[in-house]
């Protein structure tokens, strides 16, 4: 069996060494080969991507807790105030750490604040729109993560953020320019930073727009599908909130794709 399974010899080659037992051995070796179908069992790509994201968040929390045990008792309000002062001064390590955090993690407010800063500091509309798409993807992963925990209220909050991101994506990529009044930085939450008025088209925007459309088209299929899969496994208490999240993602992506067309 080792010759067949490990060395990769054929059944006939193995049987040549044992001609008297060939009849019995053949069916056994054939069965062993059939058993190798087990390696064809593969996890769904969608599940694997979601699981990877969740694992990295847990990994990040594990690393943070062991390197900075004081964060486990640092009050949430103090964390948020620190964000306002610190997000522009933070080293890449902490920001990178926060980027994988989930809604029940201490660094989650840092993640949201960093996203807002990134959008505010990106000069072009298409650049901002790309970030909106990226952050919408994060919101969906967070909703799926939270659905497993059955926290309906939190799902509603994240769905609202998803809705805002998709609306912003549609607004930024709409061919009709809309001038918006600048919004001032407020006390957290919700934190809103200034949005730049529509900028002039930057060379390369057409290519970026096409790439963005392709990304958004993929998300328009995968995100509702991922949320529907989560709906099947979610506890009853989370299902109404998840249904709304699905509706928001479908409607939001439809508007975004119309704007990009």
């Amino acid at each position, binding site marked *: 069996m080792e010759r067949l399974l490990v060395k990769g010899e054929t059944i006939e080659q193995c049987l040549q060494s044992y001609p008297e037992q060939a009849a019995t051995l053949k069916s056994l070796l054939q*069965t062993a080969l059939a058993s190798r179908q087990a*390696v064809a*069992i593969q*996890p769904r790509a969608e599940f694997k991507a979601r699981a990877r994201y*969740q694992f990295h968040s847990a*990994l990040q929390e594990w*690393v943070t807790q062991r390197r900075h045990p004081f964060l486990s008792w640092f009050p949430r309000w103090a964390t948020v105030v620190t964000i306002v002062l610190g997000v522009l001064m933070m080293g890449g390590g902490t920001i990178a750490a926060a980027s994988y955090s989930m809604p029940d993690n201490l660094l989650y407010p840092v993640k949201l604040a960093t996203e807002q800063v990134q959008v505010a500091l990106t000069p072009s509309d298409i650049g901002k729109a790309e970030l909106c798409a990226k952050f919408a993807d994060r919101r969906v992963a967070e909703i799926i993560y939270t659905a497993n925990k059955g926290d309906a209220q939190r799902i509603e909050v994240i769905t609202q953020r998803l809705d805002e991101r998709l609306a912003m994506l549609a607004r930024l990529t709409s061919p009709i320019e809309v001038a918006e009044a600048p919004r001032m930085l407020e006390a957290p939450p919700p934190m809103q930073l200034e949005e730049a008025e529509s900028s002039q088209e930057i060379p390369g925007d057409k290519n970026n727009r096409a790439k963005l459309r392709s990304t958004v088209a993929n998300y328009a299929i995968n995100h509702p599908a991922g949320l529907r899969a989560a709906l099947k496994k979610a506890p009853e208490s989370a299902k109404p909130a998840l249904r709304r999240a699905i509706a928001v993602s479908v409607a939001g992506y439809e508007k975004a794709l119309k704007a990009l067309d």
Partner: protein
Amino acid sequence: MQDEKKLVERAQHHDQEAFAQLYEEHFDKIYRYVTLKIGNETEAEDMTQQVFLNALQSISSFKWKGVPFSAWLFRIAHNQVVDYFRSKKRTTVPLDESLASDNNNPQLLTEQKLDIEQLILATKQLTEAQREVISLRFAGELSIAQVAKAIGKSQGAVKALQHSAIVALRKTLRVTEDE
């Protein structure tokens, strides 16, 4: 093995990249093992993720004894499966249809699904020890020596279990003369 040992030591010292690499290397095998043991893809997904989350919490207690790291992960997975059956209070689980790998050929996919379904049904007829060996050997892709260390038996015992399992599977699997 030495490379893996260094990787595990780095992970134990909170090296995020090292643990992430271990995760990528072993994820599919653990998933296959759990799926073969419980015969349900949807439930195997959550269990597989839980195996790695448990491993994350207890990696500091892992001691290198010449046994591959995967054997430790399979032990965690095994315990998850035992808890699963204990809580479900059943030994048979409805088969999940979407068990085959991602494949663009519909006919091959259908054949593969049937083969996998047959295999899982057939393994349910095995004893617990036989199923463990088959799952570790064929789903987990461990060698005889690795399986022996993982389950605490001699290599001779593992070979005997493998042989008796294959004999039992032969009775239930539809193997054609052409294979």
